[in-house]
C-alpha cells in the first residue's frame, strides 16, 4: 500500500494559540484511518488546513505524490479531498439529486441538464447501494439517509481521500453498522478514509490505523490491531500508565456516616443522548463524573438540571421524586449548575458583576420580591471578598474580567442561592493555574460545609485530586464507579477505555 496523503511538519498558529506544531500525518490508499484526540488536540484544525479552510504556517502536504496547497474548500475537492462534516451541510429543501450535484451540475447549452443531474446522482447513490429516490426532498428523509447522501455528494467529485468528521454522532446502532459496511466497500475500492470519532468501539471495529494528537502535537501513529485500548486512552490523555499508578491521593476527610442523598438518578436517559445513568449524590461529598470527550458527561448534567428533558428513568431531589422540565424547576429544588461553556451559557457579558452574581437568587425569589440595592451590593461585596474575585468593582461589566474571575462570579451566583447540590461542568477549563487551585480549594470548603458537589472533568488528575468517588461514563452509558483505593488514574483509564484491569479487552 502506498501513501495517499502525506503531511510533514505541519504547523498552524492563531493569535495567542499554537493549534498545530510539527504534525506528521499519513493516510494510505485503501485504509480507514482514525484521527483521535481530546478537546483542543488539533483534529479540526488539521482537517481545516487539509481542506483549504486555513492556510498552513509551516509544513508540506502531498497527495498521491504531488505537493498540494489547497487555498479553498472547492480547490481541495478538485484535488480529490472530500469532507463530510458532523452537521450535515446540505440543503434540506432541495432534492437528493440537486444536493449531490450542487455547484457542479452538468450543463447543456449553458443550462442545467436535469437528465444528467439525475443520472449522476443515481450513479453516486448506487455506488453506496443507497436505495432512495433522487427526486425526494432531502428534508423528508431520515438523518441516516441524509448522512449517506452527504457521503454520496463527497464521492461524486472523484474523491481519493474522504474525511468523515464524527459521521456516527446522530446514527443508531443499526445505521452505524450499515455505514461501516459501505465504508469498508469504499476502502476495498482503494479510497483513503479519515475517520474522526469519539467512540473507541467504532475505532476498533472499523479502522486500520490510528493517529493520536494532543495539544496540537502528534502523539503517534499506530496500527489499530496492535494498540491496546488502554494505551490508546493513555495516549489521548497524555499520561503513562505507570505514572497514573504512582499518583498519590491527598487525604480527604471521610464523609460522615451515610449522610442524606441529596440528588439521585435512577436509570436516567434520553433518546439520542445518555442512557441508564445511576447516581446518588450525598451531602458533604464531591463525586466525580469522568469519561472521554463525547462520553456523555455534559449530557448527564443537562438531564439532571432540567435543560434537556429525560425520557427514561427518574430523578430524586432530597428524597422526593422531581419532574425537571426547566432549569427553573431545578433551581427551586435547590440545584445549581455551572456550565462548561462559560461564554454562551454562563455570563451575561454586558451586565455588571453584581447583576450577574444576584441573577439566580433573584430568579428564585421571583419578579415581585426584588433584592434591595443595598442587599445586592452587600452580597456582591461578600462574595468578591470570600472568593477573592479580582475586579475593579461590583459595577464593572463581567466581560472585562479574566476567565477565572468570571468563573468565580458564576460560582458565587449559585452559592448565593444556597443550593443543596451543585453540578460543576469543567469548572477549571480555560482558566489559569492560580485561579484553578483557588477554585479547587473552594470546592473542598463547600464540601466541608455540607454541600453536595458533582464534579465533571475530562482531566483524570482533577477527578482523583478533588473527588471522594467517581462515576465513569463510556459511550454515553455508565461504565463503572471508582471509590477508595480504586480511585486512581489507572483504574479510571480502564473504565474509560472499557478494558479489564488484568489485560486486553
Amino acid at each position: 500500500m502506498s501513501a495517499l496523503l502525506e503531511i510533514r511538519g505541519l504547523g498552524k498558529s492563531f493569535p495567542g494559540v499554537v493549534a498545530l506544531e510539527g504534525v506528521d500525518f499519513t493516510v494510505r490508499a485503501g485504509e480507514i484511518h482514525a484521527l483521535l484526540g481530546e478537546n483542543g488536540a488539533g483534529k479540526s484544525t488539521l482537517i481545516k488546513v487539509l481542506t483549504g479552510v486555513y492556510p498552513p504556517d509551516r509544513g508540506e502536504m502531498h497527495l498521491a505524490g504531488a505537493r498540494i496547497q489547497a487555498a479553498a474548500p472547492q480547490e481541495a475537492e478538485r484535488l480529490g479531498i472530500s469532507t463530510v462534516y458532523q452537521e450535515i451541510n446540505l440543503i434540506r429543501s432541495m432534492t437528493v439529486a440537486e444536493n449531490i450535484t450542487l455547484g457542479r451540475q452538468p450543463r447543456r447549452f449553458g443550462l442545467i441538464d436535469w437528465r444528467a443531474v439525475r443520472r449522476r446522482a443515481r450513479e453516486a447513490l448506487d455506488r453506496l447501494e443507497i436505495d432512495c429516490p433522487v427526486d425526494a426532498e432531502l428534508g423528508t428523509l431520515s438523518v441516516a439517509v441524509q448522512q449517506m447522501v452527504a457521503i454520496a455528494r463527497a464521492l461524486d467529485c472523484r474523491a481519493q481521500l474522504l474525511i468523515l468528521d464524527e459521521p456516527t454522532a446522530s446514527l443508531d446502532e443499526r445505521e452505524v453498522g450499515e455505514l461501516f459496511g459501505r465504508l469498508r466497500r469504499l476502502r476495498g475500492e482503494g479510497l483513503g478514509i479519515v475517520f474522526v470519532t469519539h467512540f473507541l468501539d467504532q475505532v476498533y471495529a472499523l479502522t486500520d490505523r490510528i493517529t493520536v494528537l494532543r495539544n496540537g502535537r502528534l502523539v503517534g501513529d499506530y496500527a489499530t490491531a496492535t494498540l491496546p485500548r488502554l494505551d490508546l486512552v493513555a495516549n489521548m490523555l497524555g499520561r503513562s500508565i505507570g505514572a497514573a499508578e504512582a499518583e498519590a491521593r491527598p487525604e480527604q476527610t471521610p464523609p460522615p456516616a451515610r449522610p442524606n442523598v441529596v440528588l439521585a438518578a435512577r436509570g436516567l436517559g434520553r433518546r439520542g443522548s445518555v442512557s441508564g445513568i445511576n447516581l446518588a449524590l450525598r451531602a458533604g461529598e464531591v463525586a466525580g463524573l469522568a469519561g472521554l470527550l463525547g462520553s456523555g458527561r455534559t449530557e448527564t448534567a443537562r438531564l439532571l438540571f432540567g435543560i434537556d428533558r429525560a425520557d427514561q428513568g427518574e430523578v430524586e431531589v432530597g428524597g422526593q421524586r422531581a419532574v425537571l422540565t426547566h432549569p427553573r424547576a431545578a433551581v427551586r429544588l435547590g440545584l445549581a449548575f455551572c456550565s462548561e461553556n462559560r461564554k454562551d451559557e454562563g455570563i451575561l457579558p454586558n451586565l455588571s458583576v453584581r447583576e450577574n452574581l444576584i441573577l439566580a437568587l433573584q430568579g428564585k425569589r421571583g419578579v415581585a420580591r426584588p433584592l434591595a440595592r443595598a442587599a445586592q451590593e452587600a452580597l456582591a461585596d461578600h462574595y468578591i471578598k470570600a472568593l477573592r474575585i479580582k475586579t475593579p468593582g461590583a459595577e464593572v461589566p463581567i466581560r472585562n474580567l479574566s476567565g477565572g474571575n468570571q468563573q468565580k462570579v458564576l460560582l458565587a451566583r449559585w452559592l448565593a442561592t444556597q443550593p443543596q447540590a451543585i453540578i460543576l461542568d469543567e469548572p477549571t477549563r480555560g482558566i489559569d493555574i492560580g485561579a484553578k487551585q483557588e477554585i479547587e480549594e473552594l470546592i473542598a470548603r463547600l464540601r466541608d460545609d455540607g454541600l453536595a458537589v458533582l464534579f465533571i472533568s475530562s482531566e483524570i488528575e482533577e477527578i482523583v485530586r478533588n473527588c471522594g468517588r467517581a462515576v465513569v461514563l463510556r459511550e454515553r452509558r455508565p461504565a463503572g464507579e471508582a471509590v477508595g483505593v480504586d480511585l486512581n488514574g489507572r483504574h479510571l483509564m480502564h473504565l474509560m477505555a472499557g478494558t479489564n484491569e488484568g489485560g486486553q479487552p
Partner: protein
Amino acid sequence: MSGRKFLHSDGALVLWPVAGIAVLLVLNLCLSPHFLVLTLQSGHLYGGPVDILSEGSRSCLVALGMTLVIATGGVDLSVGSVMAMAGGAAALAIAQGHASLAGAMACALGVGLAGGALNGLLVAYAGIQPIVATLVLMVAGRGISQLITGGQVIAFQNAGAEYLGTGFIFGLPFSAVLVVGLYALTQIGLRRTAAGLFVEAVGDNETASRFAGLSAARVKFLAYVFCGACAGLAGLLEVANIRSADPYRAGENMELNAIFAVVVGGTALSGGRFLLFGSLAGALLLQTLTATMYNLGVPPAIAPVPKALVIVAVCVAQAGPIRRWLSRCLQRRAA
C-alpha cells in the same frame, strides 16, 4: 457620579438625542423665533414646544413599549397596525354609541393586549424570529383594521375623546402628561421590581438566563404584551386627536419611528441594557425634526431629506468608533 464618569457610561448615550433636540431648537430660534414663543391662554400653554410634546406623545408611547421588546433582543413591526386596529375599534365603539370613553379605552387596550399576546406567543413560545412573527400582524393588522371600520374613515363626536386628544391638564396637553405618567409607572414597575433586570438579562444572553433559572420565554412574552398595550393606547390617542379613525393611515411608519427612537436613545438593537428615557428623547427628537420642517417652510416633498441627514448624524455620533475617537479628542484637550 462625576461628570467624567457619566460621559463614559451607557447613560451618556441619552445625551445625543437631547443634544439633537437642543440644536434643532436653537436653529428654529435663529431662523424663525416665533416658533419657540410660549403663550398662556385661559390657563393653557400654547406654542411650538408644547405642540411637539402633544404631537410626539404617540411616538413616545410606542417607543416605550418598543424599548422593552428591543431590550429582550427582539423587535415589533406590528405596532402601527395595532394602532390602527385599536383606534378603529375604539372609534367604532364611540361612533355607534355603544361605549363611554372608558369603554373605548378598554376596547383599544384590549386590542393592543391581544395583538401583543399574539406576537409574544409566536416569538417566545413558537420560537419564530421576531421580524417574521410581527410581520404577520403588521400586514394582517391593516386588513383587520379595515374589517373593523368597514373600510371607511370613521368620524365621531365625543367630548371625552376630544379631551383625550386635545385637552389640557395642569395647563399642559393631556396626552403629554399621560405619557409622562406612563413613563414614570413603567420605570417604577421595571426598576422597583426585578423585571428590569430580567429583561436585560434575557436580552444580554438568553441561554445563560434560562440556565440561571429565569423563565426567558415568559419575560419575552410579557415584553410583547406590554408593547402591544402601548401601541393600543397610542392608537386611541391618534383617533382622539383627529376625531376619526383612518384604517389606512393610522400609525403609518410608526414601527420605524419607534425603532429609531429606541436606538437613538441608546438601547442596542442586539438587546440587553435599555434606557427608557433615551427612547422618549429619541421620539421627541423625531417630532422636533418634523416640526422644524413645518416651521421653516420646507416643502413636505423634500422634508425627508434634511430629516435623513439629521438621523444619519445622530447615528454616526453614537457609533462605537466615533465615540471612542471623540472621547480621545476630549482627553487630549483636557491633558
